[in-house]
């Protein structure tokens, strides 16, 4: 009797400890979820705070005098003259007029660096559209160089980053700011231009187009093939070793690292079939193989969820097995299959590693403007910029990232 009393006492004594450990355990769970959610929050806040700057670019107001002598042209109709004209002279003279006190070669060269390299071409396009401007003077907002842009944005934020500017340039920007001749404007280049070596001229248009092309190809190939495979495995395949083998293969492929698919694409499509690098079709084929397991697995789940009574009713009405599948099972399973397709496409859109290997990046560095680069490759490419410039540059260029994130 006293023994059981002892035990009861022991249990009573341990109750406090046990309830404390219960609370602790609960707390661990809460902390784990809090950490996970904090990670989500940190990721999004980081991307948005670093990427939103890309929507705005710095513009400088100058008086441009469209001087035919300076350009070295006689008429605007002559295409070859336009090609050879000295468009940079327009921006240079405009800057010289604005800062007439600047003299000396070195200072002048620094002065010219205030504006982006491509502004001459922008003026050319503007002049071709408005030929009456030739010989006139016009006040115009022109795109600033990326270093100026970085400095101006960081200066507005209160922590100026002037490591890449000279003292004179900083003074000039102060002067411009006091006169109200420098401001942030909507960055139109971002959505309309392709890749460029000049960060301020670069846009994501080419990348978006490349991604869309590849994605369309992937969808067109992987959805029908995936659905067909799922139909076969669920509705027609007899349960035997061969079917098991196919299933094992599909499940394994779903977990194979994506970079291995890149190796496959490189060895088979490029090395064996000699498909040229960097065309969207190679990317599309590799991504098709990669997303196929996902689509097959989700499609099979969707087909499984169609109630057997539907099949039996159709069979009872005298439909053949194919008619049952095509007329009854498939329409009912379609929403589930489309979910799988969307998941697969999101995966394909964000996938980068295999595309780097099959060279959707490097050839494009050569043909910069002419061929589309894939969107996910964009942020990777930016990591090639010199480390000293990276952090400030990102104020402009994390947008593609942000875009990637939102698309998924």
């Amino acid at each position, binding site marked *: 009797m006293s023994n059981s009393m002892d035990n009861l006492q022991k249990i009573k004594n341990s109750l406090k400890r046990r309830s404390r450990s*219960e609370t602790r355990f609960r707390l661990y*769970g809460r902390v*784990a*979820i809090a950490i996970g959610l904090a990670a*989500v929050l940190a990721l999004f806040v980081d991307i948005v705070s670093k990427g939103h700057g890309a929507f705005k670019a710095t513009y400088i107001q100058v008086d441009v005098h469209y001087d035919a002598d300076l350009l070295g042209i006689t008429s605007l109709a002559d295409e070859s003259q336009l090609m050879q004209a000295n468009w940079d002279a327009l921006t240079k003279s405009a800057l010289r007029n604005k800062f007439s006190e600047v003299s000396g070669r070195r200072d002048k060269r620094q002065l010219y660096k205030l504006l982006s390299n491509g502004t001459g071409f922008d003026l050319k396009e503007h002049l071709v559209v408005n030929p009456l401007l030739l010989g006139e003077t016009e006040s115009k907002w022109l795109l600033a160089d990326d270093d100026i842009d970085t400095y101006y944005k960081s200066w507005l934020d209160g922590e100026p980053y002037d490591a890449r500017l000279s003292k004179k340039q900083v003074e000039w920007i102060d002067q411009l700011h006091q006169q109200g001749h420098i401001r942030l404007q909507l960055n139109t280049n971002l959505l309309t231009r392709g890749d460029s070596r000049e960060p301020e001229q670069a846009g994501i248009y080419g990348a978006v187009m490349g991604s869309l092309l590849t994605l369309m190809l992937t969808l067109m190939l992987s959805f029908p093939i995936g659905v067909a495979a799922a139909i076969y495995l669920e509705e027609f395949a007899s349960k035997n070793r061969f079917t098991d083998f196919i299933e094992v*293969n599909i499940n394994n492929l779903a977990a194979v690292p994506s970079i291995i698919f890149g190796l496959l694409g490189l060895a088979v499509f490029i090395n064996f079939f000699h498909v040229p690098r960097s065309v969207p079709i190679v990317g599309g084929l590799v991504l098709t193989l990669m997303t196929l397991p996902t689509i097959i697995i989700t499609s099979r789940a969707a087909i499984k969820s169609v109630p057997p009574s539907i099949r039996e009713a159709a069979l009872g009405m005298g439909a053949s097995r194919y008619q049952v599948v095509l007329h009854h099972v498939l329409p009912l399973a379609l929403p589930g299959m489309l979910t799988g397709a969307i998941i697969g496409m999101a995966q394909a859109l964000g*996938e980068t590693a295999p595309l780097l290997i099959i060279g959707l990046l*490097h050839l494009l560095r050569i043909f910069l403007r002419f061929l589309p680069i894939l969107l996910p490759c964009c942020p*990777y490419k930016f990591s090639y910029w010199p480390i000293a410039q990276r952090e400030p540059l990102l104020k402009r260029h994390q947008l593609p990232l942000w875009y990637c*994130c939102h698309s998924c």
Partner: protein
Amino acid sequence: MDSSNLFLLMLALGAVAFYIGRGRSLAVATPLGGIRHLHSLPNYYGLNALLWCALPSLIILVLWLIFDEPVINGIVMGSLPADLAPLTTADYNLLLNKISNLADGIMSSKGQPASLIAVADSMAGLRVISQWVLTALCLILATIGLYWGWYKIAPDFRARQSVEKVMENLLLGCACLAIFTTVGIVFSVLFESIQFFRSVPFFDFVFGLDWSPQTAIREDQVGSSGSFGAVPLFVGTLLISAVAMFVAVPIGLMSAIYLAEYSGKTVRTYAKPALEVLAGVPTVVYGFFAALTVAPFLRDLGADFGLTISSESALAAGLVMGVMIIPFISSLADDVITAVPQSMRDGSLAMGATHSETVRRVVIPAALPGIVAGVMLAISRAIGETMIVVMAAGLAAKLTANPLESVTTVTVQIVTLLTGDQEFDSPKTLAAFALGLMLFTVTLLLNIFALHIVKKYREQYE
């Protein structure tokens, strides 16, 4: 005719065949008293004609496109005059490219030897002939098929069965694509690896302690030893994966337990999808996050405490990779925990155990095989993860177990070896395939084992 035009033409002919077949079946049926006297519906007769017309020629078209270039190249290179014959494979490829460019007219023939131009001309000629033979072959096959499909149409012809037979084979072909992909991966990685192991012994690769894949082009080049010891890469990969697992396993597991056992319905409906957002973020975004936010933060933090943390530390890459894997582990663990029968929990609670004791002593042991499998799948994902480490981890192969230093991984090396211009026969390029083989083997074993456990476990409670 251009191949793509030919393809469209075949499709158009197929459509014509469909209408002819359908029309004939109706024409055959009318004198008998309507289509109920046909064995199959008219559309099946049409489809049958379409398949007969388009399928054989399309198969020929695809096979031709795959094999015509190697065959033409073989003929052309076989017919080379002795003074042009290349000595090495590299020369061979170079010459082939040159001839092909000359034949396409991409390269100007100015200044090229006359014999080379003659070879290029013969190549261009062969290409034209090949295209015409293909066109003729496809058209003949399509016509014969069309005629055959039309000829076979009769009231008692079992058109539906015939069409369904073809369809079944097409479906089977689609399902077999998974096998072909696996075979393709194995062969593409294996062949290049075997070539690699011819120049670098297998044991030097697997047990070598020094990795510097720059092979010397000149004899006296500095810093290009070309040694391929992969141990530092394996160690680096394991180090980063270990850091990732230290983050992901406790957090993922505890959040799964909390969501499955403790939380109310509202918390679950909001917290679970919010955590799963992490799984949908592209890995390249994580890479950016690691390289530009986490790594500098850790470096500055370390500096405050007097620690030198490399700005490409394994810690930063591992932490972010761990965050990426959290939803993976939590959703797998959630599945297995909810699959544990309620009766087991009730039994434990009835014996007077607290909720946490029930979870720790009853639910977790019951769910353990599934959790282990989930963790193994997560490890295989961490080992194969590429973009985070490419952007956040280092390039230099260092043999260290210190997570504060910079290490490199298998996947990083594959990417760096293969991006940019490369030739296919240098050990440097082939090394990437050998690394790929290792990666594929390890992840495959992990996956098979994990899937096996999951399958076995599922059967236990169903």
